[in-house]
């Protein structure tokens, strides 16, 4: 085999190093432990991945985010600092890990989760309702988006009332 140019070898070693860091963080390091502990605080495991039953509507594989990634996203550097008037909507919230993180920030913002998978939506709503009842957190509605791609609107379900059918209203 021909010897690779020095520049290419250096690039390959950088890629190898990044892969090792990624594996350490995601599989062996503090990130999984933090996920478990934070999920536990909010009523149960919110991670994992599974295939979507709505692939025909363009829905992807359900997969959860790591908590350590979220402060990097919602930072002033990215122009995404959360202000008191913001309504926070997680489109495709899955089991609600991002919602957990938002709640953990102690903000008074309105938080909305949208999930096309009915079972996941029910699971997240049940888990977070229980949490809300015990701690008086900010108002939180669970929205189930039905056939997002088929119709242009969404059906909204609130724990405190019937679907209002107004679509994306906040």
């Amino acid at each position: 085999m021909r010897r690779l140019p020095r520049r290419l070898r250096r690039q390959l070693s950088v890629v190898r190093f990044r892969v090792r860091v990624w594996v350490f963080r995601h599989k062996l390091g503090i990130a999984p432990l933090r996920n478990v502990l934070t999920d536990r605080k909010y009523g149960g495991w919110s991670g994992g991945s599974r295939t979507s039953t709505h692939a025909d509507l363009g829905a992807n594989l359900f997969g959860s985010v790591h908590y350590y990634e979220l402060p990097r996203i919602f930072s002033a550097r990215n122009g995404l600092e959360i202000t008191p008037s913001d309504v926070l909507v997680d489109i495709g919230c899955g089991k609600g890990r991002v919602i957990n993180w938002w709640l953990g920030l102690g903000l008074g913002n309105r938080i909305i989760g949208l999930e096309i998978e009915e079972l996941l939506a029910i699971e997240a709503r049940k888990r977070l309702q229980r949490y809300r009842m015990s701690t008086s957190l900010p108002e939180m509605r669970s929205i189930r988006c039905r056939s997002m791609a088929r119709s242009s609107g969404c059906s909204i379900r609130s724990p405190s009332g019937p679907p209002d059918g107004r679509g994306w209203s906040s």
Partner: protein
Amino acid sequence: MEQLSARLTELYGDGSSLRLVLYRPRHVEVFRDDSRWDVRLISGLGLFYDTAVVTPRPRPG
């Protein structure tokens, strides 16, 4: 995603303060191809992410 993009444009595409965070490259592409949205990529989140912040462009007039 195309339907979502269209619906969001209809509701918030008039220069509102909507900020949309997208994780998947395929989703980013949908908004990048639409001139009504500004797409700004965020880097440094890991190996397999292509995260972007999407904001509506103000409509002329």
